[in-house]
């Protein structure tokens, strides 16, 4: 077992597992699991309101994690970091509250056909509520939205652009440094879905200059149930709250309420402090490995998986032919074998991949494939995992082909 897998208890327990479903969720290292357990063992209390020492410890744990996250992604201020459950909730928050602030009938929202349903359905609903239009950007054959496509779709009605940084199916990364200034030049507010990007590369929201950035903890080695919404203070201040109730208020009357300051205005109810602590530990973990190392290993393995799969004549791979640009995501089909059968039979060889529509049904239709298999790599994977994947592909093909 390679030394990186050794950080993960699940890998130690199951040393022959080729876990290639990292785009769905990554495994959790000891560092993260221990940090969460330690929090609950030593510091647990309801944060923010308890007037005693333990509650103060919980509050510190929660707010120190927020500061760490802000620093990690280059946010100017900690109050620009809102805790959510996951990227889906972050995107729902933006789609609800920003739409309330900005959208008038006939306004236009721009998204791409590559969006995960979580950056699509909230905008469909927002468009319906505000009688606005949802307009789609389409990628070139490498899965890239060109500046020409963006310029072509922008109109004087366009108010919001919400775009995935890296596609969860094609693995292609958008050139945000080119696209965002174009949108801003037209006074369009830009939201980026970074769920598939932040596990693979350093994110700096200040240099990207996006107005919002969403991601999930669980895809970057943190526990499930903690996510982040970064938003520029000027927008967060102006937007109405999303979820309401405890902790997010200032003064409450029988009929009215005033709301708490940022970030608490958007954090109703008792929060997931253990998750926040786990996310902070995951950041420490990523920094201890280093993004350089992560990128080096993932690029090499993406290239290897793509090259080896493309040698097989019965395999179709989706997205760019430059497999090094796939950010660990290789979506493919075995000719005439349904991805659910492939995934089930992969499991018999202890290879974990996903099969289906990957929460991106419109993209599947755009690719004319309805469903596909997806192997997704993290830095702790190795060449042996890719070899196991390829062997299993060959086995499945012969298993089906053997039936005359």
């Amino acid at each position, binding site marked *: 077992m390679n030394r990186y897998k050794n950080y993960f208890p699940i890998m130690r327990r199951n040393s022959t597992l080729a876990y290639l479903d990292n785009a769905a969720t990554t495994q959790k290292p000891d560092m993260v699991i221990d940090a969460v357990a330690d929090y609950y063992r030593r510091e647990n209390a309801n944060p923010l309101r308890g007037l005693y020492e333990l509650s103060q410890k919980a509050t510190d744990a929660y707010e120190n994690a927020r500061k760490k996250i802000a620093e990690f992604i280059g946010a100017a201020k900690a109050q620009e970091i809102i805790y959510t459950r996951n990227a889906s909730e972050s995107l729902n928050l933006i789609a609800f509250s920003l739409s309330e602030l900005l959208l008038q009938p006939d306004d236009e929202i721009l998204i791409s056909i590559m969006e995960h349903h979580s950056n699509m359905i909230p905008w469909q609903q927002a468009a319906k509520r505000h009688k606005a239009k949802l307009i789609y950007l389409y990628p070139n054959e490498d899965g890239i939205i060109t500046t020409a496509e963006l310029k072509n779709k922008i109109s004087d009605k366009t108010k919001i652009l919400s775009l995935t940084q890296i596609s969860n199916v094609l693995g292609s990364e958008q050139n945000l440094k080119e696209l965002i200034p174009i949108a801003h030049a037209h006074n369009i507010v830009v939201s980026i879905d970074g769920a598939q990007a932040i596990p693979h590369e350093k994110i700096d929201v200040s240099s990207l200059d996006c107005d919002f950035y969403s991601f999930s903890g669980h895809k970057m080695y943190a526990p499930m149930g903690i996510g982040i919404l970064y938003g520029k203070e000027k927008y967060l201040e102006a937007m109405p709250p999303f979820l309401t109730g405890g902790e997010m208020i200032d003064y409450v009357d029988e009929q009215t309420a005033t709301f708490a300051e940022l970030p608490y205005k958007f954090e109703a109810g008792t929060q997931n402090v253990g998750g926040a602590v786990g996310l902070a530990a995951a950041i420490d973990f990523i920094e201890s490995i280093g993004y350089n190392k992560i990128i080096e290993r993932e690029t090499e393995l993406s290239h290897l998986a793509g090259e080896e799969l493309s040698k097989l004549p019965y395999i179709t791979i989706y997205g760019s032919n430059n497999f090094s640009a796939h950010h660990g995501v290789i979506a493919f089909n075995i000719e005439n*074998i*349904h*991805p*659910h*059968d492939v995934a*089930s*039979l992969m*499991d*018999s060889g202890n290879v974990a991949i996903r099969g*289906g*529509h990957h929460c991106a*049904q419109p993209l*599947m239709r755009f690719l004319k494939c*309805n*469903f596909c298999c997806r192997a997704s790599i993290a830095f702790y994977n190795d060449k042996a995992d890719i070899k196991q994947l390829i062997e299993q592909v060959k086995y499945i093909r012969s*298993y*089906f082909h053997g*039936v*005359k």
Partner: protein
Amino acid sequence: MALNNIYNDILMEHNMHPDHKHKLLQASDHKTAINPKCEADEILVKKGLNPSCGDEIVLEINVVNDIIKDAAFNGQGCAISQASTDIMADLIIGKSIDEAIKLTDLFIDMIRGEETDPKKLEELDEAMALKDVSHMPARVKCAVLAWHTLNEMLKEKKQK
């Protein structure tokens, strides 16, 4: 669990070489029909969808005097759903509507793990080959898609 319990010969054979994957001829086509089993009577059609994976089948049955004279299907899906549909068609041809409803209920109970008595399950004949899907929660929907669709179709027919 050994997957060849599920991807067994019966399932693989029905998946690769389904007997009933075609369109039933409409009554009006009947005079020129080459399908002698299909009598000039009502053809019922129902679409079954599995939204979680996008599988879609269209089930057709030809009912004459309460007896299912023929059954066919079209659509796309995984080996489990395709084979399960073909096996079901084999099983229900020649059965009465009530018998077929009973069989679909029994199959769905088997896949949900609610009926395990091998004596009772014998009635399902080749469909017993799908029994181990009950241990694969993610694939239960694939196995029962056609059976649910037929069950609803026949119950709707009885209500008319």
